[in-house]
């Protein structure tokens, strides 16, 4: 069996046969034609109804909010087979609310697609029973927050598959604070010492509330 080697996060393989411009003069026209045909094969992978937004400076805030929301929903659709309907509907309600034009602060950035991609990867790995409250940073990064009484866990979903998290847990009426910044693939590992089920699962909360 051949098998495919799993790529590390930082080294995705781009399939292309194109010839670097500096090498163009070295190849025959026939070779160039073949290379462009192979590249056309890879371009064919684009979806026929794909939504490619134009990054035009003249777009109004309303158009930018629409583009950000539409891109997030299309990205969600790409993993919808791994999400249940109720969870997807709640997520869309939260995103709609975050991008309400009437409430929008001038100067803020709408949701960045790369941040939202990180969020989806995290949620589909952690599968929290309790869904987070969502917010947006000024830079357009999605922020997820879980609160149990005075205990907080906040995760900022950064572009390119990174996360930054901060948590506060009370012990003997004194707060303990921890923070970390890791690739999203190491989020579970990073939170593990802090018993994240406390925030993510209903059982975790019940354990917390039950008398000892």
């Amino acid at each position, binding site marked *: 069996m051949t098998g*495919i080697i799993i790529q590390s996060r930082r080294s995705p393989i781009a399939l292309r046969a194109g010839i670097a411009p500096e090498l163009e003069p070295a190849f025959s026209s026939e070779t160039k034609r073949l290379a462009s045909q192979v590249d056309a094969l890879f371009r064919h992978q684009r979806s026929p109804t794909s939504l490619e937004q134009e990054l035009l400076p003249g777009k109004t805030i309303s158009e930018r909010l629409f583009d950000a929301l539409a891109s997030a929903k299309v990205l969600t659709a790409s993993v919808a087979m791994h999400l249940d309907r109720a969870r997807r509907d709640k997520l869309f309600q939260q995103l709609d609310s975050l991008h309400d034009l009437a409430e929008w602060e001038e100067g803020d950035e709408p949701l960045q697609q790369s941040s939202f991609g990180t969020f989806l990867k995290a949620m589909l790995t952690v599968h929290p029973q309790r869904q987070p409250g969502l917010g947006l940073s000024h830079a357009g990064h999605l922020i997820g927050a879980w609160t149990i009484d005075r205990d907080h866990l906040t995760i900022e979903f950064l572009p390119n598959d990174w996360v930054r998290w901060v948590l506060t847990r009370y012990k003997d009426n004194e707060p303990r604070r921890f923070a970390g910044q890791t690739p999203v693939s190491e989020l579970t590992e990073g939170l593990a010492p802090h018993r994240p089920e406390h925030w993510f699962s209903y059982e975790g909360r019940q354990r917390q509330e039950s008398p000892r």
Partner: protein
Amino acid sequence: MAEQPYKRPPITEAVIAIGFGAAMEPGDLNRADSSFAKLYPQHQDARNLNLEFIMPDRPNLAPGTKIRHDVPGHRRSSDDQTQIVIVWPTSFVFSQLAPYPGWDDFFGRFVRDWALWKKVVGYRSISRVGVRYINRIDIPITGNLTHYEEFLNIYPRLPEELGSIFAYAIQTQLPFPEIEGRITINSSSIPSPLLEHASFMFDQDLYKENNIPQNDDGLYNLLNQIHVKKNAVFEACITDRARELFNT
């Protein structure tokens, strides 16, 4: 045959595209677009740009570009962005993103929208009927190698001596004799949107470009034939281990 054989169908996008022999006038195009406003409230202008890159014959000259066609159209979608129609001057494109509701729902929506489209723009000579299904098969990673051969029956065959690979992409065209049409299959490894998974695309484009039925019954019958073939091709190209993935 069960209409929805899988709990979690791997279809990321299903598309029906009807091509026409002659371009619509801008007025008809706009009326067709407006007629879909209630069903698909989200609107975006769509542009189909064809750029021509002109490579210089000397290395110290910059390449040139020329816009050959700039065709305006309308893209309309449901609020959740999963149901889409695109109205172009020479085609009507109808699409469903995941979650895929099954052929009965998808085809039923097409019949509804096709009737609406025809009511507004009248009869147009159909020159092409195409159905495209894009699937993504997400395989959980259990080690450094993912043996895609255990999940797929379509992949490049390489000599053992070459060992494992980083990525692949293949394209195959085959006849579709039942309708005198063709099938184009694209399959490739792709970056996974999930952690701890390797993902593979399986994309079928089934189409007919001659002797197209021009009446509704003929068109619907053709689409149903394409649907049956699409299922048969897909099932032939995956293994039971892949089927397990769609039902867990």
